[in-house]
């Protein structure tokens, strides 16, 4: 019998205290136990990026991290990227450029785009492609996403 272990996590600015079995991924806990279903599960082996979240300010695949490993840290999910009812410039730009088709990859794409632009506000197209290389879109909507990210980059002062 394996016991659940206590975890304290800051998620989207709120403190959560719960117990978790050690073999539960951060993704499983976010979705199934905390109801934060904006973060998607697709490949579950770190290839598709649908589960991208920010852990202690860095983008990671939530499917490849155990919830217990995250103890004491802070997580930002797509639900917490903007205040409730609001959207970030990246999210607005995705809508404006028609970058959203089926939508399943979009939370992960937005998390990767936000991470890229926070570190490099004016990426080249190559840098943007590299920044999104861990996120797959099965609709193939990459060009509109690149246009959306590029429009956000152009709005801010170099």
């Amino acid at each position: 019998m394996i016991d659940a272990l206590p975890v304290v996590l800051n998620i989207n600015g709120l403190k959560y205290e719960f117990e978790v079995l050690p073999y539960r991924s951060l993704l499983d806990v976010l979705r199934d136990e905390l109801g934060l279903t904006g973060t998607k599960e697709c490949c579950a082996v770190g290839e598709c990026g649908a589960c991208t979240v920010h852990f202690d300010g860095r983008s990671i695949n939530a499917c490849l991290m155990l919830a217990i490993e995250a103890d004491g840290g802070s997580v930002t999910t797509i639900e917490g990227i903007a205040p409730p009812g609001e959207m970030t410039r990246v999210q607005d730009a995705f809508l404006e450029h028609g970058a959203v088709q089926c939508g399943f990859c979009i939370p992960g794409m937005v998390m990767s785009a936000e991470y890229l632009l926070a570190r490099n506000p004016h990426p080249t197209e190559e840098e943007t492609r590299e920044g999104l290389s861990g996120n797959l879109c099965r609709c193939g909507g990459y060009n509109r996403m690149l246009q959306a990210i590029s429009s956000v980059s152009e709005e801010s002062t170099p």
Partner: protein
Amino acid sequence: MKPFLYQRPGSLAQTFDLLSEYGSSARILAGGTDLIVGLRQQSVDASVLVDIKGIGEFLPEVAFADGHFVIGATTDISRVCENEKFRATFPALVEAMETVGSVQIRNRATLVGNVCNASPAADTVPPLAIYGAMVNVGGRDGTRQVPVQEFIRGPRQTALRPGEFVLSVQLPVPNAPLGVAFARLTRRRGVDLATVNLSCSIDSVGTVRFAFGAVGPRLVLGIERSGVLADSGAPAGDRDAALANLIAATSPRTDIRGTQDYRSAMLLVLSRRILAEAAGRLDSGQP
């Protein structure tokens, strides 16, 4: 995932205690980007994961001491790539590290983990070997050093003995002018395993070293001292013959990523390319 226990020791001594208590059913957890996949796909069996990220002795950043850069077992690849001095000293290794996985993977995956995973296709291993990397293996009785190409003994096989784990990888700063280059071939840019990967170095006396990955159960190393590869004016046929001689030591196989013939043909093409690049770096004074 099958159930497992989780331990997060705070010191090296506690870690060695746990490894001796649990034996071969314990697995070390650092970045987890290979281990968690293995556990989920049930290609790896573990009854306990020993998370080494709480060990006080490990430094999160790249350290420099006595002419060596030391990368601890918990330092992720992104952090290594962010170190400007490291980038300037080991450009070909940085290029290899920047091809590993994706941004999200590199923010978790460790350089030490890429070595310990012992995949024949690990991208960092050819340049690590070319730069003379040593693996610092820790055990209850002390630390021993193993060259990276000896540490990886075959697919998923390392030189680790029971109760040991890798504390760090260290790289000597080249003490003479050296040009080093890296190349890999994949079907797509991100999150793909190498069809072939390779690195080479050239020094100012004309010695050329090659390391070929993903074309045999272990890394294949070659050395050419005649000077023909260092002389860009030598007849192309002679240079290709010297490269073919080195490539002959490889044993590529046919799999989903490419046929044996394709791999051999691409090794020659990419060897020519990185040799020219390494020579350019030697001329420009870059390592």
